[in-house]
């Protein structure tokens, strides 16, 4: 029996309500990520990079296509099962970190572990060792009191805490200067490599290209799609969440 890929995308298409019917916001005929494989997803602003990540995480509902994580079609899972599956299989890193304010660095990592399938008795050790390995010497400090660099490390630790198969990083360097962007990418690649997680990192920053062996251009990928696909029937009844 072969080990399933970390991520498989087949004929994935999505458009926001009100978009002309011929135009897809996301149109990915096929994309695969192997175990622990890092991939840079490039594309200009508005090409649907972040939307693709939310579709992959099961936080948005595509009109067509399949997303398989560890061989499981995330969009076929019902609400609660999908949330649990995401919590155990997918880690996410955001441009603005999206840490839980009012919680300590340790609690932010523990919050991710709450929804993992790791035994609760191991949560604290796992969170502490992760933060320690990333140089967070004050794990009980509220995250809003940490420096930007430390917040980024907490976000990275949180993303890999549940030992995910896939880490999705959404423009992690967009708001950073070149020097800090290097540091941030070093960190993200280090933690995902150590966690043996595949990494799908979106960016419109061409400087990141040198860091990845595999780079996918989202616009080029979309152009490979069959034109007929644009006319596929919409299955809006599956839409769990629509952006406001």
């Amino acid at each position: 029996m072969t080990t399933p890929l970390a991520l498989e995308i087949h004929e994935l298409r999505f458009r926001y309500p009100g978009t002309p019917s011929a135009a897809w916001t996301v149109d990915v005929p096929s994309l695969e990520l192997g175990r622990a494989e890092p991939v840079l997803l490039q594309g200009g602003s508005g090409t649907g990079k972040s939307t693709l990540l939310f579709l992959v995480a099961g936080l948005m509902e595509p009109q067509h296509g399949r997303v398989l994580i560890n061989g499981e079609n995330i969009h076929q899972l019902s609400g609660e099962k999908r949330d649990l599956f995401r919590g155990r299989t997918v880690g996410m890193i955001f441009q603005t970190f999206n840490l839980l304010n009012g919680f300590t660095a340790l609690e932010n990592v523990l919050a991710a572990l709450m929804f993992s399938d790791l035994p609760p008795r191991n949560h604290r050790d796992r969170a502490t060792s992760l933060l320690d390995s990333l140089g967070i010497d004050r794990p009980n400090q509220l995250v809003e009191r940490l420096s930007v660099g430390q917040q980024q490390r907490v976000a990275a630790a949180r993303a890999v805490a549940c030992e995910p198969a896939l880490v999705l990083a959404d423009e992690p360097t967009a708001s950073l200067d070149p020097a800090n962007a290097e540091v941030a990418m070093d960190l993200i690649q280090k933690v995902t490599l150590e966690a043996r997680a595949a990494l799908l990192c979106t960016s419109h920053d061409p400087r990141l290209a040198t860091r990845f062996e595999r780079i996918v251009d989202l616009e080029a990928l979309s152009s490979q799609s069959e034109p007929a696909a644009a006319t596929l029937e919409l299955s809006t009844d599956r839409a769990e969440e629509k952006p406001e």
Partner: protein
Amino acid sequence: MAMTDFTIISRSLTSRLFSTVTTIITVAVAVALMIVLLSMRTAGQDAFQRGAGNMHMLVSAEDSPLVAVLNSVFYASAPRQAIPWSKYREITEGLGIPWEFAIPNQQGDSYRGYPVMATTEAFFTRFEPHPGVEWSFRAGRRFERSFEVVIGAEVAAGTNLQIDDEIYLTHGIEDSRQRRIFGRADEVHMEPHVHDDYAYRVVGILEPTGSPHDRALFTNLESTWVIHAHDIRRAADPSVTSTTAADLRDADRLITGIYLRVGTRPGRTLSAAQQQVYDTLRRDTTITVADPHFEIQKLFRIVSNIDQIFIAMAAVVLLSSGIAIMLALYNTMEQRRRQIAILRVLGCSRPRIFGLVLTESALIGLLGALAGVVLAFIGMFAVAEMMKQTLGLVIEPRLEPVWTFVMVMASILLAALAGVVPAAAAYRTTVVAHLRPLG
């Protein structure tokens, strides 16, 4: 230790501490009000019933039976009308009624605001402050001769009087600055007069009884008659220096009430002849006959309407505290949507988010209810003290377990219901919209 839902809830509550605390206080006030009203209703009725002890009837010259009971049993104020001693003799000896006791008493004097009851030794040997419970002395003994005084437990605590201390009684109730004894209207609004020609010696200190008698002093009738006769004699002849029992005239022998109990069979508290005796006494238009227990029930029927209004008001306060919880949670929901979105990304399901907000709301209800119970306990002491000062009613402040439990549960339920709207808003939070920027 792993993180739990409780950690998330407690962080949410403490992150907006002011709002949380004020909402809890709102709930606490409503719960306390309800508990105090509901518990005090029962405790008040018990306290009123307790004061009447084992007497069946009260005879006085007051205008109404209720006033008679309030003044002669609860020391609410000094009785205005007097009964001549001849009437007492007539009732006890002339009607052929088999009295178990007929205890005369006179009120009107006071010591440092505490009322003085002049009575007979039968007050201690036959009358029981609680049916079945006899008087008990913490120190000393009951009075045996004139100018000896026994003090109630509260008087002892309030005045620090000890055995063998000497005191002088004040004519009228000192606190009121009015002399209202025996209806002598000409003396109203005069400064209090101290009977300083006659000293009383403290011979006994009573144990607490939880009855209005705890705040009274007791002496014999003869000494009281003597000090008042002395005042009258001196007013007529300033050369009078001393008055004794031998100087007493029939007009001096006045009382303000008679505690009555009809003979009963052993082990019984009521007598079959009670109603007949009551009717016989009522034929005499110069006196007022009261059944204390009936009068107390009547009083509670009168006040129960006001009571219900208060309870309705407290219920409205409780309801508005529920709305306050809803608003407090709902108004912060906009700030919390990002947090909810993050939790969803981490794997928290919509039902669990709904449950978190609902639990948070219920927790506010629980904390408010617990604070309310504490507040109610303090409030009951305040109300009990007020009742004691104004009505002479000794109420034992205690929380009715049933009402306390009901109120705590009702508060939690109401708070949980109030949390449904914000919880639904949390449930509907869209993750993507609250984790911008989007590419």
